[in-house]
């Protein structure tokens, strides 16, 4: 039977809305106001219309940053999701070692982002860092301040180190929720390890994996602190991701108008992708439920 949906419960989120108004909605409205004006400081503004949007849409700098950003998010997702699942599958399922693994894996998640950046910045240095020194001693040319490939490898490995645990923890939670009966049935059918994974574990983990992908995508798409601390966007502009470019434009050059137009487009892309993920997720839930 089809039921009408009562949406009145949404009124209960009004207090939150009020808080969010101050922390997000009003600043965002201000950004929209900035994006159609020009300023030379002193809180004086001049009408510019859609000029900044046009300029940004035609700016190679923004498209390049977007390309780098998509590449970064794509690569870390392609590594972290399978690796996280692999780790979760191989974790002890119960007892002391299970808790031990869980605590150990949460540790990178607890470290502040700028500290993660600093750790890797020092770790990779050729003169005093363990990683950089070792690679150098092995005769591998590794210098993340000058070599583009080295810089990319460093920020990707850093992100994998920092966030794979999150995927693993989510995947582990998904695995734990599978009733034993499924495994027993698979055993009776003499299903192979791969088939157990493919037809039992993976479908049952789908919900949490979607959350993991969404979280990792959004976080990596908005990443600023870690690559900024490690490479500062260099060498050249090789690791200048969207937010690094945005901060350079808004605070470094004080181009408030173009930066505002840039942030609105950035925000729209994130909003679109989040909506797509959210819709896919809720629809998966409904089909399963």
């Amino acid at each position, binding site marked *: 039977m089809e039921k*009408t*949906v009562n*949406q009145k419960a949404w009124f209960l989120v009004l207090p939150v809305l009020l808080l969010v108004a101050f922390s997000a909605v009003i600043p965002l*409205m201000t950004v*929209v*106001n900035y994006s159609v004006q020009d300023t030379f400081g002193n809180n004086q503004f001049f009408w510019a219309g859609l000029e900044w949007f046009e300029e940004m*849409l035609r700016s190679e700098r923004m498209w390049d940053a977007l390309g780098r950003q998509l590449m970064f998010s794509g690569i870390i997702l392609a590594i972290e999701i399978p690796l996280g699942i692999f780790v979760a599958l191989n974790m002890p399922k119960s007892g002391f070692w299970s808790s031990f693994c869980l605590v150990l894996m949460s540790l990178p998640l607890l470290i502040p982002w700028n500290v993660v950046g600093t750790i890797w910045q020092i770790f990779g240095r050729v003169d005093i860092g363990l990683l950089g020194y070792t690679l150098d001693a092995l005769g591998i040319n590794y210098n993340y301040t000058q070599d583009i490939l080295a810089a990319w490898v460093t920020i990707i490995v850093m992100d994998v180190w920092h966030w794979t645990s999150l995927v693993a923890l989510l995947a582990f939670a998904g695995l734990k929720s599978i009733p034993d009966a499924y495994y027993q049935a698979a055993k009776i059918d003499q299903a192979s390890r791969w088939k157990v994974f493919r037809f039992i574990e993976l479908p049952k983990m789908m919900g949490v994996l979607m959350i993991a992908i969404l979280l990792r995508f959004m976080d990596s798409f908005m990443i600023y602190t870690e690559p900024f601390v490690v490479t500062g966007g260099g060498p050249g502009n090789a690791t200048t991701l969207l937010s690094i470019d945005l901060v350079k434009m808004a605070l470094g050059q004080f181009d408030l108008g173009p930066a505002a137009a840039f942030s609105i487009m950035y925000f729209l892309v994130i909003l*679109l992708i989040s909506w797509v993920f959210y819709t896919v997720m809720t629809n998966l839930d409904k089909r399963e439920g």
Partner: protein
Amino acid sequence: MDWMAWTWPTAIFFAVIASLLITFTVLAIKFPETPRTGILRIETTRGDRLFITLLGSAFINLAWLGIVGAQQPYALIVCLIYAAAVFRWV
């Protein structure tokens, strides 16, 4: 409010969005509805369709600006057609 650097066009823009949200809130209370499944094969309510319309319109406007140039009134016509399509078929 000076620090927010208000202009008339942006004020009107936000007023339109706010009034749309209020209208749809009132509609949702007065006339509760059944979510339906359209061509995107996802369940949508009126509010969802409004969101899809607004988000899509933003991208239509940007695309128009990037490809055709700054003639937004025409882009707005495309947006209205798009909105009608979303409310009819999605």
